[in-house]
């Protein structure tokens, strides 16, 4: 098993000030799958990863990483894992190639062992010919890709990525996704955290939505969507009538008639339904209102389960 977490609890502080950040998480990764951990800021995603790597002690629960108990044998387990951290931590004083060589040294690899693999690693990261480039000369996307290459120096069985595409442009995100798919195709197990639902929907074989330290749902993206949300969504916004009332007022009066469930966020109403035909016919007769009809996605599930309030 690449990773098995049972009953993980993590508290910070003690006594009356104690804060439970992770409150009983069970997680089992299957070999070769890509598993996404979703959750708003502060849900406990990064803390869960840190516990899994043995970088912080669990308050209770048990963890097995690559078949080894953590934290007891965390060091040995980490030798078989690659990590792409949330924040860039490349060595600014080294070139791209030197970053890989020095990092391989932390795994006990000699320069002669890693040197022949550098062209292949840089090519994988889309950084061909950049071995002598300074880190300062790389764009944000290139740095993230180099960090991905760095996480692969030890040919890991399990690759852990903490928000791998945050802050990247669409081109860079797509390249990272493509590379991660290639890795899973080659048999590497992947665990990633993200708050981009489209990323999870595209990449993950299975996912878990985490909030306030607990797993709310777990399953394949399709299962989760099917089990937790109506298949159709109509977003309604704009002016309802001449009195200046908006979509929110319209929703209060009509949403219950035409949809199973309706969420109002600001001046937009999100109507969830199994069949949108009658709702769309009704909306066609309300000239001031505009609407967007689409299938429900993971983001709808996420917002339903974790709420629409800001988390910061």
């Amino acid at each position, binding site marked *: 098993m690449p990773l098995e977490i049972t009953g993980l609890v993590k508290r910070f502080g003690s006594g009356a000030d104690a804060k439970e950040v992770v409150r009983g998480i069970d997680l089992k990764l299957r070999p070769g799958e890509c598993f996404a951990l979703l959750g708003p800021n502060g849900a406990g995603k990064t803390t869960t990863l840190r516990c899994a790597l043995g*970088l*912080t*002690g669990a308050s209770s629960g048990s963890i097995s990483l690559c078949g080894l108990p953590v934290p007891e044998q965390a060091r040995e387990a*980490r030798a078989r894992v690659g990590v792409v951290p949330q924040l860039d931590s*490349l*060595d600014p004083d*080294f070139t791209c190639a030197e970053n890989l060589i020095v990092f391989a040294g*932390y795994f006990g690899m000699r320069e002669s062992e890693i040197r022949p693999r550098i062209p292949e690693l840089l090519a994988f990261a889309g950084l061909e010919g950049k071995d002598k480039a300074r880190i300062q000369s790389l764009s944000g996307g290139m740095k993230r890709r180099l960090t991905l290459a760095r996480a692969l120096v030890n040919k890991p069985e399990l690759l852990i990525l903490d928000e791998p595409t945050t802050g990247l442009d669409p081109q860079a995100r797509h390249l990272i996704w493509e590379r991660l798919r290639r890795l899973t195709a080659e048999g590497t197990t992947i665990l990633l955290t993200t708050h981009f639902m489209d990323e999870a929907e595209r990449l993950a074989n299975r996912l878990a939505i985490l909030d306030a330290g607990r797993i709310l749902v777990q399953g394949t993206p399709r299962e989760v969507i099917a089990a937790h949300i109506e298949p159709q969504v109509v977003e309604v916004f704009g002016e309802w009538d001449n009195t200046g009332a908006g979509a929110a007022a319209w929703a209060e009066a009509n949403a219950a008639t035409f949809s199973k469930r309706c969420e109002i966020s600001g001046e937009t109403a999100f109507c969830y339904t199994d069949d949108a035909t009658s709702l769309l016919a009704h909306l066609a007769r309300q000239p001031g209102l505009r609407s967007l009809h689409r299938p429900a996605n993971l983001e709808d599930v996420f917002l339903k389960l974790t709420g629409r309030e800001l988390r910061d």
Partner: protein
Amino acid sequence: MTPTHFAPPRLSLRLFAVWRRNFLVWRKLALPSIVGNLADPVIYMLGLGYGLGMLVPEVEGVSYIAFLAGGTLCYSTMNAATFEALYSGFSRMHVQKTWEAIMNAPVALDDIVAAELVWAASKSCLAGTAILAVIAIFGFTASALALAAIPVIFLAGLCFAALGLIMTALAPSYDFFMYYFTLFITPMTLMSGVFFPQSQLPDSVRTIADLLPLSHAVSVVRPLLLGQVPQQAGLHLAVLGVVTVLAFWLALALTRRRLLK
């Protein structure tokens, strides 16, 4: 703090990979680094040695500049180790997140802090050795005993690196280090017999001065440079060793509290 923070260090040979990383960065910037570590103390030594030396013909039976040479060697080693543990260590720990990256590999935080300790001492010893060479070239030491000062300044480097790592573990930002320099390093430099003999100090100050690690380093290094066998060398070296061990232990506990949460 909890008792687990004070657990004995669990070290592995991987600490040399971390040491090597710092060495490779240093090698890229070696020239400005050596000039920086060398020029300042040498200028002070020559300026004060010749300038003040005109007014003070002899101190403890030798020329003022020969007296100053041993003190300069010790306090510049201290400064080099302190700067490395404070500013460079803090950059790697807090700003560049280098330590975080390393901890994702099979290297423990204990290895990293120990590597920083040994690295800062190595760098300060290198700087000190360069200063010793200048001292020898200028003829302020003529004794082969001076070579014995090199392991002593390495030990002093360990001691001040360990003390510095305590500050690094506590620092919220670079500005914090000013307290350490103003309240500890500068007064210690003046009280440890670097620039003038400790016999000039009032008795009450002398009692405190005798406890300071820099005093003990100077007490061993100065006689060696003057070709004398230092008195109570074992005691002085033992103090440096004990301070190193205790300071490293505390620095490690504080760093564990800061990073392993």
